């Protein structure tokens, strides 16, 4: 990726405010700060290169998330082929998404660890709707599926996560433990 392409003033104005949310989604998918930021950089380069091709009449946010999501899926597939070195729970603390702060840190790591156990297609929907607050129509665009599919994936993701949380509570009260 060449960092030499230059964004227009217009693009800076419109895209810059959305970068923190792009980082958040990338971090949630990859759960590695450096790799996630690298991914966002890739996505921004693509956005700069294709700025004129975007459809002006539709949501810029959905367009950017689409680019980011597709690049993330490429990376996750490459990771899977390489046999990514560790199951997500074993990634060293410092590389994880969540800066450890106070006593909530453990619970937050736990929710991320549980989300990591969802099938990819469910995890993306959960994040795009629940965290990024995309509309259902925008999420359907990003994932290139009908809106009905978004709703059914969302329903399955939430129910599955609920069961995982309940199992966790039953397994080791009072605090959740996921690592076997």
């Amino acid at each position, binding site marked *: 990726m060449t960092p030499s392409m230059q964004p227009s003033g217009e693009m800076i104005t419109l895209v810059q405010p959305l970068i923190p949310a792009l980082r958040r989604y990338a971090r949630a998918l990859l759960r590695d700060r450096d790799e996630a930021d690298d991914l966002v950089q890739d996505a921004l380069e693509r956005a700069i290169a294709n700025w004129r091709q975007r459809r002006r009449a539709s949501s810029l946010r959905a367009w950017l998330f689409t680019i980011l999501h597709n690049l993330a899926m490429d990376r996750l597939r490459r990771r899977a082929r390489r046999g990514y070195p560790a199951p997500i729970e074993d990634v060293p603390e410092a590389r994880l998404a969540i800066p450890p702060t106070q006593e909530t840190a453990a619970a937050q790591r736990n929710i991320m660890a549980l989300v990591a156990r969802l099938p990819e297609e469910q995890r993306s929907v959960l994040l795009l709707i629940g965290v990024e*607050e995309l509309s259902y129509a925008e999420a359907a665009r990003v994932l290139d599926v009908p809106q009905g599919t978004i709703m059914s994936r969302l329903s399955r993701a939430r129910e599955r996560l609920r069961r995982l949380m309940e199992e966790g509570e039953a397994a080791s009260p009072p605090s959740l433990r996921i690592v076997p």
Partner: protein
Amino acid sequence: MNDAPVTEAEIQAHVDGRLPSGRAAAVEAWLAKYPDEASRVASYRAQRDALRAALDPVLDEPLPLALDLRLREGAPTGRPGFGRSALAASIAGLLLAGGGAGWTLRGLDAQATTGTAALAREAAASYAIYADDRTRPVEIGADQRRTLDAWLSRRLSRPIAAPDLDAAGLRLIGGRLLPTEHGPAALYLYQNAAGERTALYLRIMKSDDATDRMTRRDEDGLRGWTWADDGLGFGVFGAASDDFLHSAADMVRARYRQS
């Protein structure tokens, strides 16, 4: 009227707070009758809140230099990182989309780049980008109002403050600093009890445009009022009615003339 059977998709939309109010009430009533379903909804909401709590700190991290578009080598310069004509053009192209889905872009038209007409477009564009943001609409919240006012005053080189608009039912959420081709601008966001947001936008005007009468604006469907007093330009924009925005604008102008 709203007694159709509750669907699973509606339950999900209810978790997300995206049902029309009439239907939300119907789903609430239904949930009251089925405690298992109600606890399922509560659990889904708790998941979402936990996820946000885990991930939102990313938003507060400083942006790595490699991700800051304003710092790109060769990026248009002048005011920190912003091109003049490009910015004016981008602002002309923004409009607020109907419903809660956010904002979209339209073709760019050549438009005036000075006076309160330019300010109106900037204010409307800022509203379109930030007012709809439920997570991070402002940089500094109303809980740090003094810090916010002091910071914006310093950056605009002019004493400004978020006026008290309680009389209009508007509560300050906070504010942020914005770049424009005419220099820094301040955006204050207010919210009413229903969660509808109104923006107050301020920046320094060029000496030619130092004073301008109160003017009604319609920026691609987003309505508001602009004026300029003694070198300071104002815009009040929002989704509320014309009359409401006009009286809010009058209130702001009165507060500033008093001070």
